[in-house]
């Protein structure tokens, strides 16, 4: 492998890269609001005999109570463990026997069921998704098994490939008890706090027809699919609890270090950042261009400095998480234990370079071509289109969010981009450092970046 491909990440991260080439526009879709408030979005296309469906419930893990992180995620997983007349095994069998794919997951702002079926099995797909959301068994025995397994999978990740846990440590340190500090899949201790009763209460409070969006794309006739979905979901009652209200998170002032000790690790994983911007941020095009050049592609400044020029790391990137309120902006990379501070200093130097020099005209043209050239494959399949339509709906955006994007990319100038960089990327004296590695070797070295809070990777939590 030459470089990790970006993982499929939180829905919110779609925004970080959402872009369209000139002349490529979102296909049209029919939007229907049922009497109970459920929104249907239907996009018909017959390229291959498949149908992609995404059913999104507004809410998500931001509604997890403090200390019970992972609740929404556990509920999502439990939806697959039996629903309607089917037991857990029968439910899995029903989807697999026709080659259908069915999964459920939670993000900070949503709970999502995704389905991808052959078009001949459309009726079964609608039945299974409808059962999952409206008639889940939520069996106590299945709950306990799932919770224990989730706890053990976190232990497994701590032993192997700890880089996967970096987002959890980083958000916990940056946001603290603010909902955005929630490790969405929970920690060993927070999962242990979740009871079956909590889960039943969450389902009753948070899941309902008035918060439901069903987006479907692919090989079907719109009228028939609309009628089938209306029949299946039209009677879904409203949720009884209020949607979580999320406060504006405070940016960190000054610099602080969170050191996670993994004895024997031969490399150090790190993140550097602060609080960034919300989805409402008006200068999206400028920010996307800046981040593409800074840490969003192979020739980015961070990869050039940390990999191409110095050989310090295999990869480096910068990412912005954008939600209803400002999310994080993080640089991330990793390096051999002995070059920990060297790599951190290179990353800091590169951040300073971005803030001091901004982007010149040539970089902007290159970034614009890249962002626009790489977008069309994101809309290629029925499942991708269903996801994009659902994302727009859940965030109250219309097609211009995508169709007008090319124009706003073209309007960005070195001056407008420089303004955005200085407003969004943190300055050198206001940074959090999340560093995971062999603390006995690097503890003293990393203290130069700020006061150190240390935790052992074997502690059952991600928060300090």
């Amino acid at each position, binding site marked *: 492998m030459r470089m990790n491909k970006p993982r499929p990440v939180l829905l919110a991260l779609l925004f970080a890269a959402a872009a369209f080439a000139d002349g490529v526009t979102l296909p049209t879709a029919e939007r229907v609001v049922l009497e109970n408030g459920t929104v249907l979005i239907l996009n018909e296309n017959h390229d291959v005999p498949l149908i992609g469906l995404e059913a999104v419930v507004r809410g998500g893990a931001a509604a997890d109570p403090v200390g019970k992180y992972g609740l929404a995620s556990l509920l999502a997983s439990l939806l697959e463990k039996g629903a309607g007349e089917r037991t857990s095994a029968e439910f899995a069998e029903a989807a697999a*026997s026709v080659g259908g794919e069915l999964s459920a997951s939670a993000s900070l702002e949503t709970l999502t069921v995704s389905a991808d079926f052959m078009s001949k099995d459309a009726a079964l797909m609608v039945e299974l998704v409808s059962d999952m959301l409206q008639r889940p068994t939520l069996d106590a025995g299945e709950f306990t098994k799932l919770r224990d397994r989730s706890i053990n999978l976190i232990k497994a990740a701590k032993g192997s490939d700890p880089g996967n846990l970096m987002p959890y440590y980083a958000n916990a340190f940056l946001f603290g008890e603010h909902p955005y500090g929630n490790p969405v899949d929970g920690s060993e201790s927070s999962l242990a706090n979740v009871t079956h009763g909590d889960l039943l209460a969450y389902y009753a409070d948070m899941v309902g027809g008035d918060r439901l969006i069903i987006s479907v794309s692919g090989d079907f006739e719109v009228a028939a699919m609309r009628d089938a979905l209306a029949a299946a979901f039209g009677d879904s009652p409203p949720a009884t609890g209020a949607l979580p209200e999320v406060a504006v998170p405070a940016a960190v002032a000054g610099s602080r270090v969170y050191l996670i000790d993994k004895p024997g690790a031969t490399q150090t994983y790190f993140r550097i950042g602060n609080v960034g911007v919300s989805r409402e941020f008006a200068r999206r095009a400028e920010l996307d261009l800046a981040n593409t050049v800074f840490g969003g592609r192979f020739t980015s400044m961070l990869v050039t400095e940390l990999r191409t020029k110095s050989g310090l790391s295999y990869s480096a990137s910068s990412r912005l998480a954008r939600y209803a309120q400002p999310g994080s902006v993080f640089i991330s990379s990793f390096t051999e234990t002995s070059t920990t501070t060297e790599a951190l200093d290179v990353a800091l130097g590169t951040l300073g370079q971005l803030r001091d020099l901004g982007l010149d005209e040539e970089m902007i043209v290159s970034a614009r071509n890249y962002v626009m050239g790489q977008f069309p494959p994101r809309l290629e399949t029925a499942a991708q289109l269903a996801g994009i339509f659902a994302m727009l709906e859940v965030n109250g955006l219309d097609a211009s969010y995508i169709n007008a994007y090319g124009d706003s990319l073209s309007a960005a100038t070195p001056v407008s981009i420089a303004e955005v960089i200085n407003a969004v990327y943190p300055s050198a004296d206001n940074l959090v450092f999340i560093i995971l590695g062999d603390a006995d070797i690097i503890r003293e070295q990393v203290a130069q970046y700020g006061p150190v809070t240390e935790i052992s990777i074997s502690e059952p939590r991600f928060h300090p």
Partner: protein
Amino acid sequence: MGTPTIRIIIMALFSELRRRNVIKVALLYALASLLILWLVGGSLIWLGAPKWANEFVTLVLAIGFPVALIFAWVYEITPTGLHKSKDVDQTQSFVYKTGQKLNAAMAVLAVLGVLALVGERLLPTFELPKIIEPILLPPVYEVPDTAGVPEEIRAHTLDNGLRIIVWPDHDIPNVVMYNFVRAGARNEYPGITGLSHFFEHMMFNGTRRRKQGEFDETMEAAGGANNAYTSQDLTVYQDWFPRSALETIFDLEADRLHHLSIDPEVVESERGVVYSERRLRIDNDNFGRLYEQMMSTAFIAHPYQVPVIGWPSDIESWSQGDLESYFRTYYAPNNLTMVFTGDVLPDEIFVMAEKYFGPIPDRDPPSSITTVEPQQQGERRLLVAADAPTPLLHVTFHAGSATDPGTLPLNVLLSVLVGGSSSRLHQQLVESEPLALSVGGFQMEGLDPGLVYFYLTLPPGSEVSVVEARLLEELDRVANEGITDAELQKARNIMVADYWRSLSTINGKAAALGRAEVFRGDYQLAFSLPDELQAVTAAEVQQAAVDIFDRNSMTIGVLRSPAEEDEHEDE
């Protein structure tokens, strides 16, 4: 030149050709043909006409050319109608007027041509892929001959042996290129393990015409992105780009194949990058640590025992000479297969390929890998002692290559055993009992006989031997009792749905064509899966279990903390 007499005759002939308007007719015909081909070429794509329609029109126009010239020579238009030239009284000849009409016709065609070109620019919705050079009589390229294979796919091999396959698909204005190089870890030996993968990195690090980094800068500035991977069998380069970057991609790819430079300073810095990748994927990843040991234990002779990333001491030691000789041996056009899918036309790809890759000389083919893994003579066991909260259990058996007739039944068997949450092993070991946190499996399907591989993550404190016994019991059960008709049908349905999912993107299409061509010798086999699956029987699947799950060909590996085992011994 001939004698003066002959010269006079030729001049007289030429003057008569001109008088009879034959030359004007020839010019007019050529101009009209170009316009017709241009218009037809475009509209046929939109009308979805069969692939031969374009060739047919070209052929008709080509046959018509001499006919029109002979007609112009023999006949003359006169005020009384059409007459043979020799019958027309020369004083009454009308040819100059006909000539003027022909001039006018040429002018009209020229204006039409210009208007069409301008119109094409002004109408972005009618944006046809532009053919870089007019091709009046394209050479005959290979056309699929098997039912069920999309007929728009074309294949062609350049004189230097470079094999190119093109699948046009105009849904999105993007193109995918895969370049399959027949070189991987199986071509390595002690001292140069990991060299194929390292070379993959060096292919991005500068040529005699472009400094380090320029390849990526040029590609990304044109809107393209790239990646590459190395396996036991192959090194594969991938470009994803907007159609507008097509010629840039050809230029970049040809440059690095033709003019690669291996700068010793860059080699040193890249060793650090690859070492970082090794720490990421192997040293700090328990799955990677155990997998590496499994491969080097299950194979004792065949180079599949070589880790793709390379042994650490080899990463530190391979030399400039190793790299140069590796490039000469494996990066010759006759050792490559390229696939293009997306918003392109086969003809333009073949013409560009000739222009950019044609000049690269072919070389002697690399020597073949002759080592055959000797039959395993009994169970092998290995332990990786690691600080691991959750133990890992990996189990392998020897299996066939990609072309082995047993490969498909074995894939069906794997689907029944580990394909998703309804599979036997997931239901038994993860859901019902539950002894494992997760279970998965795959078979290698490479150029040479490989392994079928099962991997399980166990809960903390597990008795690994108990889980192992349960796993083997399930493998024995399927060998003894076979699978049900419902399980067979489910596996078929899952595999057919996955087949359609893989063909729903131009990236998936490129991968599928390339894999079929490189591993099975014919890209058309990418489309045979639905039929082949229909032919697989439950008996064949059971036979696969009997043949494969032989204890004497089994390797069992465990990764766990030494302390954890001690606790059990104390219990």
